[in-house]
């Protein structure tokens, strides 16, 4: 029920009704973009936005920078600790 799917806005259909076309895996569908429009981000600037689509509404703009940070954190996960372990091993090696 609460699921959403990422799509990219490719066209504004009706600026006054805040309707746009979103492409999701090659399929185009009309969605309402009222939830992602603001004074700082008017209708015209929405083309190209990646959004989360839920029951015919773009509910949130997907933040590419945050997505990158999450993945980076996961990639680095455990590596710092591995480095510390390796460092302590090499220190031991030196002292012997």
């Amino acid at each position: 029920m609460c699921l959403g799917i990422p799509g990219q806005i490719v066209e504004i259909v009706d600026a006054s009704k805040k309707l746009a076309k979103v492409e999701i895996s090659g399929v185009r569908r009309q969605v309402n973009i009222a939830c992602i429009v603001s004074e700082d981000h008017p209708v015209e600037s929405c083309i190209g936005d990646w959004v989360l689509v839920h029951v015919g509404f773009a509910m949130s703009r997907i933040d590419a920078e945050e997505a990158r940070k999450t993945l980076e954190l996961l990639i680095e996960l455990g590596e710092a600790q591995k480095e510390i372990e390796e460092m302590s091993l090499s220190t031991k090696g030196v002292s012997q």
Partner: protein
Amino acid sequence: MKYVDEFRDPVLAKKLVDEINKLVKEIDFAKQRPIQLMEFCGGHTHTIFRYGIEQLLPKSIELVHGPGCPVCVLPMGRVDDCVSLAERPEVIFATFGDAMRVPGSKKSLLQAKADGADVRMVYSPLDALELARKPENKEREVIFFALGFETTMPSTALTVLQAEEEGIENFSLFCNHITTAPTIKAILDSPSMQLDGFVAPGHVSMVVGEQPFHFIAEQYKKPIVITGFEPLDILQSIWLLIKQIAEKRSVVENQYARVVSSQGNLPGMEAMTKVFELREFFELRGLGSIDNSGVRITNDYARFDAERKFPVPNIKVADPKQCQCGDVLKGVIKPWQCQVFGTSCTPETPMGALMVSSEGACAAYYNFGNLPEMMSLKNIKEKEEAML
């Protein structure tokens, strides 16, 4: 698919599982009893089963599947109300597909449709509004079955505002929206539950932000992490929860920052506050009546309220005796321990709502769990009981 595939990377999943395994060893109480984490949202339950996440986790972590599946917690009496509205000759009853097969006390919406009621399955409330706009439906009333937690509320609220703007008179909502935070509070206040942390619903949070969940960390001292819906999201969230437990902290963390901002979705919430107001209480199947757990349509938008336009029976109906959906929802029993699971209640012929929706815990166990093992455990239990 962008923003999906990269969050399903098995190498990163393995890394997270390793880290979780390491951290769990630092938690002393986990040697006596399992660490119980509740994923509230049915969407999370679905991902957990689809990707076998429970099997990846150490035995000392137990996932409790919460009541966040709106069709699952819909009381049977409300389904009867839907059928009663749908059977009015002037009505076109529009609903999401999930709700079609939920059993009422006499019939489901699907059976009502087979008996001649005009029930239409729609993908969006806007599709229901489009039905109302059609010249051939001018004399008909289109009722949209508004269902779901806060994720879905902005969409129905904005649809009502659109109907108002266009002066569409033959459109209304049968409002059954429910609220997340009061439901979690009811779970926390329930004496039978010993939860250690929450995997919080990502898309509800996308609408309402972090604020409604602060009381869980502050008053109840339970860690809570707002979580996305891909397998890596869930594993990372479990890792963050275990980390908080190990460090004896309890805060609201946001794992799903690519979609959820801390203040939520302002235009969405603005539309919601215009169209909806809290009900003093609302009944959730299996959990009973919970204060402030539902919303109704405000007086300003009364003309879009199907409950004010038409008489609705509004009769409380108890679940069938054999059906133990309530106990499953509260985590008192596992789905396969229910006496009708897999025998008279299956996804093809569901008795209880938890078997209907793909987000329901019973359907998830049935479709993705180890069915032969569960059934043999169930048979052993039944034989033991028969011998007593």
